[in-house]
């Protein structure tokens, strides 16, 4: 059976000629891949990025935006390599979210 990402030749709707200016988090995600895969670091190859994206499952693959898939894959690869742990990630995400909440509170 064909994998979900292997869509060449499948029926699909008309091409929506959409474009958007990438936001900072998207550009940062893009930059992280470049840096993690460079000669100095060699922590992630493009095929490894793709492997984790293709393992997201059809539902998530379609629902997530492009750079959402990228950051999910980069994170998965870094966890697998032990660059940081799931606990560290969970703590950091909670801190980022709390920081945003207090910024919003201060701003309102």
């Amino acid at each position, binding site marked *: 059976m064909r994998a979900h*990402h292997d*869509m060449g030749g499948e029926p699909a709707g*008309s*091409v929506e000629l959409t474009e958007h200016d990438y*936001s900072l988090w998207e550009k940062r995600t893009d930059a992280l891949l470049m840096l993690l895969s460079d000669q100095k670091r060699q922590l992630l190859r493009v095929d490894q990025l793709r492997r984790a994206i293709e393992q997201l499952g059809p539902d998530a693959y379609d629902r997530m935006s492009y750079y959402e898939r990228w950051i999910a894959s980069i994170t998965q690869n870094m966890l697998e390599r032990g*660059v940081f742990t799931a606990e560290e990630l*969970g703590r950091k995400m909670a801190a980022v979210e709390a920081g945003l909440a207090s910024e919003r509170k201060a701003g309102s």
Partner: protein
Amino acid sequence: MSHTHDHGDHDHEHDHGHAHPVRIDHDDRPLGYYQIMATAVFELLIEKGVTTADEVRAAIEAMDGRTPEQGARVVARAWTDPAFKARLLADGSAACRELGIDMGVTRLVVVENTTEAHNLVVCTLCSCYPRAVLGRPPDWYKSRAYRSRAVREPRAVLAEFGTRLPNDMTVRVHDSTADMRYLVLPRRPASTEGWSAERLAALVTRDSMIGVAVAKPA
């Protein structure tokens, strides 16, 4: 983005126990789950000494500096310098390097449009794109509709971009890979004899180098 962004009905369950609705990628919205993840990973990689904020900033600026104008410079040079064109068609990466465009280890294959054949570039499996020459890809290039249909009904896809080719013209579709990227060398527009490369470059659009359009008329 071209993917469906009506995420209102979906809550993503994650292992730390609470759900976050995913929101669209607009700066004026509260951050969604993956945007929070992106910030967290960015900060963790700096804390672990894997990278620095300056390196990330420099990488973003370098990528922002890669725009279709670079590709237009390559095309205009090929239109005005037959020896360069021959080198470009023989080895795209090496010819781009002559103009200061570094493809890294990626192989760039340049395909030439002629009166008999038109070329179109896609990446059916993901979103491989000649980023070093054209910058980040447009959303539609990464969309399911474009990736699925470009290889089966290229003429219908081209028509959606407003590009209609003669029926007797061959259409060649090139499916990119991570290691091999394609760039279309569009046909030089009529009535541009004697134009400088700089003037010609203004006629070369991003879409003409992907092959969904032709170069602008003179």
